[in-house]
């Protein structure tokens, strides 16, 4: 009994790290995605190209490679720029997820009919008023399902930081497995991931319901 409590506690410690990475990533990459999507749909060509470059590089290469690059590669490329493990992981995840969110939001923004812009315009609204009050709120509703998918993927992707030796759920479980020759830590780990994702599903369902009052 004591043993089980102790191992579970250790894995939960890892869950704290996982959760921290998850929350930081979402909290920064969502707004980042929104901003980049605005850039990608703006009239400024150089901005559009820059965003295109960003999203195609990030989405076209493995997340694992990006992790290695930020942690091991950057210090070689730019001497002195050395991130602590967790920071490196957070930076990589933010940039990675930011790119996916950019694409999702871009699609959402572009799915808003031209008539919405025109109606706003003939009422005298400026471009930024139109974006903030008319386009983005409708975009949020449309992107909820894909964003919810990404969030669930993110929970699972956090396990990748094991390669940097960060003590999150998976690493902590695996440590116990190799030490004690038991698979129960893996089952506990799976349970935690499942619980996290279940929470997310419930949360997003609530949000979707709130946006269901129209259309």
């Amino acid at each position, binding site marked *: 009994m004591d043993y089980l409590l102790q191992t579970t506690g250790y894995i939960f410690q890892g869950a704290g790290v996982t959760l921290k990475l998850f929350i930081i990533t979402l909290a920064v990459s969502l707004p980042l995605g929104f901003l980049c999507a605005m850039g990608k749909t703006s009239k400024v060509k150089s901005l559009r190209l820059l965003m295109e470059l960003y999203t195609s590089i990030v989405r076209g290469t493995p997340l694992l490679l990006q992790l290695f690059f930020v942690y091991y590669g950057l210090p070689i490329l730019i001497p002195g720029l050395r991130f602590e493990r967790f920071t490196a992981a957070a930076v990589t995840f933010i940039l990675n997820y930011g790119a996916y969110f950019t694409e999702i939001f871009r699609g959402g923004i572009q799915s808003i*009919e031209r*008539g*919405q812009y*025109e*109606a706003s*315009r*003939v*009422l*005298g*609204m*400026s471009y930024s*008023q139109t974006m903030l*009050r*008319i386009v983005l*709120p*409708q975009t949020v*509703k449309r992107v909820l399902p894909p964003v919810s998918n990404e969030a669930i993927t993110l929970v699972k992707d956090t396990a990748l930081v094991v390669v940097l030796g960060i003590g999150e759920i998976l690493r902590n479980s695996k440590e116990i497995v190799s030490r004690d020759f038991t698979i129960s830590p893996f089952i506990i780990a799976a349970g935690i991931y499942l619980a996290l994702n279940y929470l997310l599903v419930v949360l997003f369902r609530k949000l979707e319901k709130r946006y269901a*009052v*129209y*259309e």
Partner: protein
Amino acid sequence: MNREMISAKGLRKNFGNLEVLKGVDLTVSQGEIISIIGPSGSGKSTLLRCLIHLEKASAGSIHIEGEPIVTTSAEGVVHTPHERQVRHRCRKLGMVFQNFNLFPHKTALENVTEALLVVAKQDKKQAEIRGEEMLAKVGLSDKRDTYPCYLSGGQKQRVAIARALAMGPDIMLFDEPTSALDPELIGEVLQVIKQLASERITMLVVTHEMTFAREVSDRVIFMDDGRILEDAAPDKLFTDPDHPRIKTFLEKML
């Protein structure tokens, strides 16, 4: 009473190689009710859209109540004032679209108050009073908290009219306001427009409703292939048009 509300001269518009407006001259005086009719693709919508600057004219000039929206120099250089200035001047115009273009995430009342809040910078209370007044005017007071998706086409269009009116425009532009409606809903929208006409709000109405055009308008403009073919009183245009084309068109419409 003869104040010049809109003056367009030599107005041209092309989309790439396609010339859609080929030199349109149009003057609208205060209180005039003008219908614009003509075959599909003749440039009726484009004309309205240029007047309210949803499209930028390729040449010619537009003045709204004497203030320029577009001018063209003798050398043919098209000039538009600063974007903010254009936006400000175009606030004299209100526009109603064929597809309503209501904001789906806002209730009927919020649709009407949105621009009052963010453009006219009214406070919430003030905007709501004005918004309710406008909804009452189009007979939709009981729908104030309803989202557009629960409104019929006719009700949607009436909200759209209320939304445009709320900003207190001097001139209303209607682009086929009843074309997207089921036949039994057309009447309620035309009724509202007729009421505005009786208040002598200056308006330009692109329409395929010939009876409406004939009954309500002071002038009817027939557009064909990017030009105004005839601009006359309704009785003249509907009974004795100068151009045989117009006769053929009207026969087809009836």
